[in-house]
Protein backbone atom coordinates (compact mmCIF):
# COMPACT_ATOMS: atom_id res chain seq x y z
CA UNK A 1 0.00 0.00 0.00
CA UNK A 2 1.37 3.43 -0.87
CA UNK A 3 2.30 6.13 1.63
CA UNK A 4 -0.53 8.29 0.35
CA UNK A 5 -2.94 5.48 1.12
CA UNK A 6 -1.77 5.11 4.70
CA UNK A 7 -2.13 8.82 5.42
CA UNK A 8 -5.65 8.90 4.05
CA UNK A 9 -6.88 6.39 6.64
CA UNK A 10 -10.43 5.14 6.59
CA UNK A 11 -11.54 7.46 3.76
CA UNK A 12 -8.98 6.04 1.35
CA UNK A 13 -10.03 5.33 -2.21
CA UNK A 14 -9.81 1.71 -3.34
CA UNK A 15 -6.21 0.71 -4.19
CA UNK A 16 -5.21 1.43 -7.75
CA UNK A 17 -4.21 -1.37 -10.06
CA UNK A 18 -0.48 -1.97 -10.25
CA UNK A 19 1.11 -0.48 -13.40
CA UNK A 20 1.57 -3.59 -15.56
CA UNK A 21 4.30 -2.19 -17.83
CA UNK A 22 6.21 -0.29 -15.11
CA UNK A 23 7.09 2.38 -17.66
CA UNK A 24 6.85 6.18 -17.33
CA UNK A 25 3.83 7.77 -19.01
CA UNK A 26 5.81 9.90 -21.50
CA UNK A 27 7.81 6.91 -22.65
CA UNK A 28 4.65 4.80 -23.00
CA UNK A 29 3.06 7.61 -25.04
CA UNK A 30 6.06 7.67 -27.39
CA UNK A 31 5.90 3.90 -27.86
CA UNK A 32 2.17 4.09 -28.61
CA UNK A 33 2.84 6.87 -31.12
CA UNK A 34 5.54 4.72 -32.73
CA UNK A 35 3.14 1.77 -32.95
CA UNK A 36 0.63 4.02 -34.75
CA UNK A 37 3.36 5.33 -37.04
CA UNK A 38 4.53 1.79 -37.82
CA UNK A 39 1.01 1.12 -39.11
CA UNK A 40 1.12 4.23 -41.32
CA UNK A 41 4.52 3.38 -42.75
CA UNK A 42 3.50 -0.27 -43.03
CA UNK A 43 0.46 0.77 -45.09
CA UNK A 44 2.69 2.95 -47.31
CA UNK A 45 5.13 0.10 -47.95
CA UNK A 46 2.34 -2.42 -48.60
CA UNK A 47 0.62 -0.04 -51.05
CA UNK A 48 3.96 0.55 -52.77
CA UNK A 49 4.57 -3.22 -53.02
CA UNK A 50 0.99 -3.76 -54.24
CA UNK A 51 1.32 -1.10 -56.96
CA UNK A 52 4.78 -2.26 -58.01
CA UNK A 53 3.72 -5.89 -58.28
CA UNK A 54 0.48 -5.11 -60.11
CA UNK A 55 2.21 -2.87 -62.66
CA UNK A 56 3.99 -4.55 -65.54
CA UNK A 57 7.29 -2.92 -66.58
CA UNK A 58 7.79 -1.03 -63.33
CA UNK A 59 10.77 1.31 -63.97
CA UNK A 60 14.23 0.67 -62.53
CA UNK A 61 15.62 4.20 -62.80
CA UNK A 62 18.42 4.20 -60.20
CA UNK A 63 21.76 3.87 -62.00
CA UNK A 64 23.75 5.00 -58.99
CA UNK A 65 22.72 4.82 -55.35
CA UNK A 66 25.83 6.56 -54.00
CA UNK A 67 23.77 9.48 -52.68
CA UNK A 68 21.45 7.03 -50.90
CA UNK A 69 24.44 5.16 -49.44
CA UNK A 70 25.85 8.42 -48.03
CA UNK A 71 22.41 9.32 -46.62
CA UNK A 72 22.19 5.90 -44.95
CA UNK A 73 25.65 6.29 -43.44
CA UNK A 74 24.69 9.71 -42.07
CA UNK A 75 21.43 8.35 -40.64
CA UNK A 76 23.15 5.43 -38.89
CA UNK A 77 25.91 7.68 -37.55
CA UNK A 78 23.44 10.24 -36.25
CA UNK A 79 21.56 7.42 -34.49
CA UNK A 80 24.82 6.50 -32.76
CA UNK A 81 25.58 10.12 -31.77
CA UNK A 82 22.05 10.34 -30.34
CA UNK A 83 22.86 7.39 -28.09
CA UNK A 84 26.07 9.16 -27.05
CA UNK A 85 23.93 12.17 -26.07
CA UNK A 86 21.58 9.94 -24.09
CA UNK A 87 24.46 8.29 -22.26
CA UNK A 88 26.00 11.66 -21.42
CA UNK A 89 22.63 12.90 -20.16
CA UNK A 90 22.22 9.82 -17.93
CA UNK A 91 25.66 10.59 -16.48
CA UNK A 92 24.48 14.19 -15.86
CA UNK A 93 27.13 15.57 -18.22
CA UNK A 94 24.97 18.39 -19.58
CA UNK A 95 27.53 20.03 -21.87
CA UNK A 96 28.48 16.75 -23.51
CA UNK A 97 24.85 15.69 -23.97
CA UNK A 98 24.00 19.04 -25.58
CA UNK A 99 27.01 18.79 -27.90
CA UNK A 100 26.12 15.26 -29.03
CA UNK A 101 22.50 16.28 -29.60
CA UNK A 102 23.61 19.17 -31.79
CA UNK A 103 25.88 16.83 -33.76
CA UNK A 104 22.87 14.52 -34.22
CA UNK A 105 20.74 17.45 -35.38
CA UNK A 106 23.49 18.44 -37.83
CA UNK A 107 23.29 14.90 -39.22
CA UNK A 108 19.55 15.34 -39.60
CA UNK A 109 19.99 18.62 -41.49
CA UNK A 110 22.63 17.09 -43.77
CA UNK A 111 20.39 14.09 -44.42
CA UNK A 112 17.48 16.40 -45.30
CA UNK A 113 19.64 18.38 -47.73
CA UNK A 114 20.85 15.21 -49.44
CA UNK A 115 17.28 13.95 -49.60
CA UNK A 116 16.19 17.17 -51.33
CA UNK A 117 19.15 16.80 -53.70
CA UNK A 118 17.94 13.27 -54.51
CA UNK A 119 14.46 14.63 -55.25
CA UNK A 120 15.87 17.42 -57.42
CA UNK A 121 17.74 14.76 -59.42
CA UNK A 122 14.51 12.84 -59.96
CA UNK A 123 12.61 16.01 -60.91
CA UNK A 124 15.30 16.98 -63.42
CA UNK A 125 14.71 13.60 -65.09
CA UNK A 126 11.03 14.50 -65.47
CA UNK A 127 9.61 12.48 -62.59
CA UNK A 128 6.53 14.13 -61.09
CA UNK A 129 3.54 12.86 -59.13
CA UNK A 130 1.55 12.19 -62.29
CA UNK A 131 4.12 11.29 -64.93
CA UNK A 132 7.63 10.05 -65.56
CA UNK A 133 9.70 9.29 -68.66
CA UNK A 134 9.65 5.52 -68.13
CA UNK A 135 5.97 4.67 -68.36
CA UNK A 136 3.83 3.68 -65.34
CA UNK A 137 2.49 6.93 -63.90
CA UNK A 138 2.12 5.42 -60.44
CA UNK A 139 5.90 5.31 -60.02
CA UNK A 140 6.31 9.05 -59.30
CA UNK A 141 3.39 9.19 -56.87
CA UNK A 142 4.60 6.09 -55.02
CA UNK A 143 8.21 7.30 -54.89
CA UNK A 144 7.46 10.83 -53.66
CA UNK A 145 4.80 9.79 -51.16
CA UNK A 146 6.85 7.12 -49.39
CA UNK A 147 10.15 9.04 -49.37
CA UNK A 148 8.33 12.31 -48.62
CA UNK A 149 6.65 10.84 -45.56
CA UNK A 150 10.05 9.69 -44.31
CA UNK A 151 11.56 13.11 -45.05
CA UNK A 152 8.75 14.76 -43.09
CA UNK A 153 9.52 12.58 -40.07
CA UNK A 154 13.25 13.28 -40.24
CA UNK A 155 12.73 17.05 -40.61
CA UNK A 156 10.30 17.16 -37.68
CA UNK A 157 12.65 14.91 -35.69
CA UNK A 158 15.54 17.30 -36.33
CA UNK A 159 13.48 20.27 -35.10
CA UNK A 160 12.41 18.27 -32.04
CA UNK A 161 16.03 17.36 -31.34
CA UNK A 162 17.10 21.01 -31.38
CA UNK A 163 14.14 22.09 -29.24
CA UNK A 164 14.74 19.36 -26.64
CA UNK A 165 18.50 20.07 -26.59
CA UNK A 166 17.91 23.78 -25.94
CA UNK A 167 15.37 23.10 -23.19
CA UNK A 168 17.67 20.47 -21.67
CA UNK A 169 20.51 22.98 -21.68
CA UNK A 170 18.22 25.52 -20.02
CA UNK A 171 17.27 23.04 -17.29
CA UNK A 172 13.62 22.63 -18.29
CA UNK A 173 14.06 19.08 -19.59
CA UNK A 174 16.01 16.16 -18.14
CA UNK A 175 17.59 12.91 -19.32
CA UNK A 176 14.18 11.22 -19.52
CA UNK A 177 13.08 13.71 -22.19
CA UNK A 178 16.24 13.01 -24.15
CA UNK A 179 15.46 9.30 -23.99
CA UNK A 180 11.99 9.98 -25.46
CA UNK A 181 13.39 11.95 -28.42
CA UNK A 182 16.12 9.32 -28.81
CA UNK A 183 13.51 6.57 -29.23
CA UNK A 184 11.79 8.64 -31.94
CA UNK A 185 15.09 9.34 -33.72
CA UNK A 186 16.02 5.64 -33.73
CA UNK A 187 12.59 4.89 -35.15
CA UNK A 188 12.89 7.31 -38.09
CA UNK A 189 16.32 5.86 -38.81
CA UNK A 190 14.85 2.37 -38.79
CA UNK A 191 12.14 3.40 -41.23
CA UNK A 192 14.85 4.66 -43.60
CA UNK A 193 16.53 1.24 -43.39
CA UNK A 194 13.31 -0.23 -44.83
CA UNK A 195 12.85 2.45 -47.49
CA UNK A 196 16.35 1.99 -48.94
CA UNK A 197 15.89 -1.65 -50.03
CA UNK A 198 12.20 -1.37 -50.96
CA UNK A 199 12.34 1.87 -52.97
CA UNK A 200 15.94 2.11 -54.17
CA UNK A 201 17.85 -1.20 -54.08
CA UNK A 202 15.06 -3.27 -55.65
CA UNK A 203 14.89 -0.74 -58.50
CA UNK A 204 18.55 -0.43 -59.43
CA UNK A 205 18.99 -0.14 -63.20
CA UNK A 206 20.52 -3.24 -64.78
Amino acid at each position, binding site marked *: MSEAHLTMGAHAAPPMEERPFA*IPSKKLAMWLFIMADVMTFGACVVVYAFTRNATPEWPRPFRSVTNVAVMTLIMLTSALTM*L*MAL*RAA*KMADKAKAFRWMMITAAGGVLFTLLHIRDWMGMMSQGVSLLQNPWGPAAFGAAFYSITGFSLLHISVGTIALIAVAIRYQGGRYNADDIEIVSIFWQFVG*LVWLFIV*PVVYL*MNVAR
Partner: protein
Amino acid sequence: MATAEGHGIGKYVAVYLCLLVVMALQFFIGYQNIAGSALVVRMLTFAVIETILVVLFWMNLGSEKPLFIKFIVFFTGFVLLTLNYGWTDSFRLLLFRLTGFGPS
Protein backbone atom coordinates in the same frame (compact mmCIF):
# COMPACT_ATOMS: atom_id res chain seq x y z
CA MET B 1 13.73 5.38 -16.72
CA ALA B 2 17.37 4.46 -16.47
CA THR B 3 17.49 1.85 -19.18
CA ALA B 4 20.73 3.13 -20.69
CA GLU B 5 22.52 3.30 -17.40
CA GLY B 6 25.13 0.73 -16.67
CA HIS B 7 25.82 -0.01 -20.32
CA GLY B 8 29.00 1.04 -21.99
CA ILE B 9 29.08 2.64 -25.39
CA GLY B 10 30.64 -0.60 -26.70
CA LYS B 11 27.26 -2.24 -27.20
CA TYR B 12 26.03 0.70 -29.29
CA VAL B 13 29.18 0.74 -31.42
CA ALA B 14 28.96 -3.04 -31.96
CA VAL B 15 25.36 -2.67 -33.20
CA TYR B 16 26.45 0.25 -35.41
CA LEU B 17 29.15 -1.88 -37.04
CA CYS B 18 26.70 -4.78 -37.51
CA LEU B 19 24.21 -2.44 -39.17
CA LEU B 20 26.91 -1.08 -41.49
CA VAL B 21 27.84 -4.62 -42.55
CA VAL B 22 24.19 -5.61 -43.14
CA MET B 23 23.55 -2.42 -45.14
CA ALA B 24 26.69 -3.04 -47.22
CA LEU B 25 25.40 -6.54 -47.98
CA GLN B 26 22.05 -5.08 -49.03
CA PHE B 27 23.72 -2.62 -51.41
CA PHE B 28 25.86 -5.45 -52.81
CA ILE B 29 22.81 -7.67 -53.38
CA GLY B 30 20.96 -4.75 -54.97
CA TYR B 31 23.50 -4.69 -57.79
CA GLN B 32 23.39 -8.47 -58.37
CA ASN B 33 21.19 -9.90 -61.08
CA ILE B 34 18.78 -11.71 -58.74
CA ALA B 35 15.20 -12.59 -59.70
CA GLY B 36 12.28 -10.69 -58.12
CA SER B 37 11.03 -12.92 -55.31
CA ALA B 38 14.52 -14.06 -54.25
CA LEU B 39 15.61 -10.42 -54.11
CA VAL B 40 12.58 -9.45 -52.00
CA VAL B 41 13.17 -12.32 -49.54
CA ARG B 42 16.86 -11.43 -49.11
CA MET B 43 16.24 -7.71 -48.70
CA LEU B 44 13.43 -8.20 -46.20
CA THR B 45 15.48 -10.75 -44.23
CA PHE B 46 18.26 -8.20 -43.83
CA ALA B 47 15.74 -5.47 -42.96
CA VAL B 48 14.24 -7.68 -40.22
CA ILE B 49 17.73 -8.31 -38.77
CA GLU B 50 18.31 -4.54 -38.73
CA THR B 51 14.94 -3.99 -37.05
CA ILE B 52 15.70 -6.48 -34.26
CA LEU B 53 19.09 -4.88 -33.60
CA VAL B 54 17.76 -1.31 -33.55
CA VAL B 55 14.62 -2.01 -31.51
CA LEU B 56 16.29 -4.19 -28.89
CA PHE B 57 19.56 -2.31 -28.39
CA TRP B 58 19.20 1.26 -29.70
CA MET B 59 15.58 1.84 -28.67
CA ASN B 60 16.32 -0.15 -25.51
CA LEU B 61 13.16 -2.23 -25.76
CA GLY B 62 15.21 -5.21 -24.58
CA SER B 63 15.64 -3.50 -21.19
CA GLU B 64 11.90 -3.11 -20.58
CA LYS B 65 9.55 -5.45 -18.74
CA PRO B 66 8.77 -8.69 -20.64
CA LEU B 67 5.04 -7.86 -20.60
CA PHE B 68 5.68 -4.54 -22.35
CA ILE B 69 7.88 -6.21 -24.97
CA LYS B 70 5.13 -8.78 -25.62
CA PHE B 71 2.56 -5.98 -25.91
CA ILE B 72 4.62 -4.06 -28.50
CA VAL B 73 5.60 -7.12 -30.52
CA PHE B 74 2.14 -8.71 -30.56
CA PHE B 75 0.09 -5.65 -31.50
CA THR B 76 2.55 -4.24 -34.03
CA GLY B 77 3.19 -7.64 -35.58
CA PHE B 78 -0.52 -8.41 -35.78
CA VAL B 79 -1.35 -5.18 -37.61
CA LEU B 80 1.60 -5.49 -39.99
CA LEU B 81 0.63 -9.06 -40.85
CA THR B 82 -3.04 -8.22 -41.41
CA LEU B 83 -2.05 -5.24 -43.58
CA ASN B 84 -0.54 -7.78 -45.96
CA TYR B 85 -3.84 -9.62 -46.26
CA GLY B 86 -4.92 -7.73 -49.37
CA TRP B 87 -1.48 -7.58 -50.96
CA THR B 88 -1.79 -10.85 -52.85
CA ASP B 89 -4.64 -9.29 -54.84
CA SER B 90 -1.94 -7.47 -56.80
CA PHE B 91 -1.05 -10.82 -58.42
CA ARG B 92 -4.63 -11.06 -59.70
CA LEU B 93 -4.44 -7.52 -61.09
CA LEU B 94 -1.10 -8.27 -62.75
CA LEU B 95 -2.46 -11.44 -64.35
CA PHE B 96 -5.53 -9.55 -65.55
CA ARG B 97 -3.42 -6.79 -67.11
CA LEU B 98 -1.06 -9.21 -68.81
CA THR B 99 -3.64 -11.67 -70.16
CA GLY B 100 -6.76 -9.55 -70.37
CA PHE B 101 -8.55 -12.41 -68.62
CA GLY B 102 -10.61 -11.33 -65.64
CA PRO B 103 -13.67 -9.41 -64.54
CA SER B 104 -15.11 -7.06 -67.12
